[in-house]
């Protein structure tokens, strides 16, 4: 098999018969469920764009393993050009979906594991890298979606994994057999988990002595026995169950998060990539996080493009587009959005070729990128709400608009700029609502805060790499710190009196 079509992807997802629970019920026909389907459409877009020649240079790459053209989401970056194209691809997909399109976590997981398995083998004489390369080629050859599963529930944050009262707070090995391992635990906040063919598990923190059973990385099919999913709620999600598209804001696309449970899941050895090597767990966490922090310099920017466009359109429809403060706010939103993009590109252009042969982003700049992402989308959203006006959260429902008696009244009083149909004005305001405080706000706001690590995680990485001693030396040299002081008072120039 080579590249799949969107239809083939959706059918392949249905064929997995995943164990998904939502609102206390097991959902069998999940690909057609109105709350879940928009998130599936997002990933389908990664297949659709890959088939279009005008997007090929971003969406496709040449595999270094097979020499074949593959979807970039399954590619191991081979150059700084690959790294920057990744960011541009993510911006494109954010623009096309106005949502988190979920396929990045698997891409970031394979790129992190590629170098860590190599370095583990070099140090420990293991054979993880060869088996991992075989797995990556399997993903590429079948054009599969992989979920990169890192975040454990973590329980009491003051305790290390092996001292938790409930050992399942971090996913761990419960049995080692001749043919593989058995694992138990859970991964939380899993973006796109229910839309994936495969799961790639990684530890969530740098493990210490005593945590060996928790230093585990492996892959398994998303429908492996013992794996099930509890679907996460989103603000305003039940609007998708209503019989109209208007109040949803973005009816066709959306994000997805789930709690993924591993109830004694068997993993054969050829799918295990870390098993007790605690000294490499920190590198794996940092590299996955680094790649994912780069990702946000693309995906959130694409969604930001949509929000800026929606705010500008709302201003047009309100008849306020010529107001100088509106123009200035749109400039500020653009400035913030392009700053995020600049960071995503900068950490890509400054990337390096690792000893394993793949290219990795510059860690300092990737963390700076994500630190900005924890702030700027909030300001962009605030300005969008400012421009849109209060109507975006007070306007009547689609049912009222459709009502024979009430509808004409709604239309009469919600008219804006004269040439704009009221329905279109309401559509664009609902989109702003969706992005700033509806279902998509999960991805655009809170995910910007906590996804790929909460703000403090980036500050720790920034502190570690800030090269502060060099900065001190620069300042001391210019100020003359440490040089002998010659106490010569500077004589002021005499001023001639008139």
């Amino acid at each position, binding site marked *: 098999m080579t590249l799949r079509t969107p239809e083939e992807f959706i059918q392949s997802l249905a064929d997995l018969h995943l164990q998904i629970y939502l609102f206390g019920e097991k959902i069998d026909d999940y690909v057609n469920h109105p709350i879940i389907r928009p998130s599936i459409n997002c990933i389908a877009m990664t297949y659709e764009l890959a088939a279009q020649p005008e997007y090929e240079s971003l969406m496709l790459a040449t595999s270094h393993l097979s*020499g074949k053209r593959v979807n970039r989401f399954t590619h191991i970056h081979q150059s700084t050009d690959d790294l920057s194209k990744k960011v541009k691809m993510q911006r494109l997909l954010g623009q096309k979906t106005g949502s988190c399109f979920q396929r990045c976590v698997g891409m970031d997981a394979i790129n992190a594991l590629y170098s860590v398995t190599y370095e583990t083998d070099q140090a420990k004489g293991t054979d993880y890298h060869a088996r991992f390369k075989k797995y990556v080629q399997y993903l590429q050859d079948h054009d599969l979606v992989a979920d990169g599963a890192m975040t454990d529930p973590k329980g009491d944050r003051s305790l290390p994994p092996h001292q938790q009262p409930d050992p399942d707070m971090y996913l761990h090995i419960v049995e080692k057999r001749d043919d593989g391992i058995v694992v138990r635990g859970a991964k939380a906040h899993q973006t796109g988990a229910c839309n994936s063919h495969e799961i790639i598990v990684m530890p969530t923190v740098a493990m210490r002595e005593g945590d060996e059973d928790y230093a585990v990385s492996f892959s398994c099919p998303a429908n492996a026995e013992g794996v099930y999913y509890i679907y996460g709620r989103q603000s305003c999600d039940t609007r998708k169950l209503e019989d109209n598209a208007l109040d949803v804001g973005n009816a066709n696309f959306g994000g997805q998060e789930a709690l993924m449970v591993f109830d004694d899941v068997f993993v054969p050895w050829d799918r295990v990539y870390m098993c007790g090597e605690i000294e490499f767990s920190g590198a794996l966490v940092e590299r996955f996080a680094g790649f994912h922090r780069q990702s946000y310099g693309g995906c959130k920017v694409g969604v930001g493009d949509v929000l800026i466009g929606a705010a500008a359109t709302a201003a047009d429809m309100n008849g306020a587009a010529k107001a100088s403060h509106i123009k200035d706010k749109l400039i500020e939103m653009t400035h913030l959005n392009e700053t995020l993009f600049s960071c995503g590109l900068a950490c890509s252009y400054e990337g390096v*070729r690792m000893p394993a*042969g793949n*290219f990795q982003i510059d860690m300092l700049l990737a963390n700076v990128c994500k630190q900005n992402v924890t702030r700027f989308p909030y300001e962009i959203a605030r300005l969008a709400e400012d421009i849109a006006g209060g109507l975006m959260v007070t306007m009547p429902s689609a049912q009222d608009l459709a009502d024979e008696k009430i509808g004409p009244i709604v239309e009469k009083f919600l008219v804006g700029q004269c040439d704009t149909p009221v329905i279109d004005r309401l559509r664009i305001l609902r989109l702003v609502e969706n992005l700033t405080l509806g279902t998509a706000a999960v991805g655009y706001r809170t995910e910007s805060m906590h996804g790929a690590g909460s703000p403090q995680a980036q500050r720790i990485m920034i502190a570690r790499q800030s090269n502060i001693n060099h900065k001190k030396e620069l300042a001391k040299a210019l100020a003359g710190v440490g040089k002998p002081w010659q106490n010569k008072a500077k004589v002021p120039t005499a001023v001639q009196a008139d």
Partner: protein
Amino acid sequence: MKVVYCGGCNPHIDRSAVAAGLPLDDQDVRAGATVHLSGCPRACASDHRLTGEQDAAPGAAAEAAPRPGRDQVKVVVAGELVDGVPTPEAQLATTITRKLKE
């Protein structure tokens, strides 16, 4: 032996001090050997590469990558990394020297 420096905009190490500790006139160092000396992990002196290894053609095994000749010894330093391996600054010169003589 030749030393190729990065531009020096963000040095985590004292590049001049490291270079001063290298065996410039040592007979055991092969002629044509090169040390790519970058001040930080961005590895600008070696075109953003942490090792001197070449790429294999797409689809080919890594072992098929072009190998440098015996007179093309190349050591890559990027901050406190030598050929991608963490190395404290105080040990950089001796580590590079050992590699140049291997």
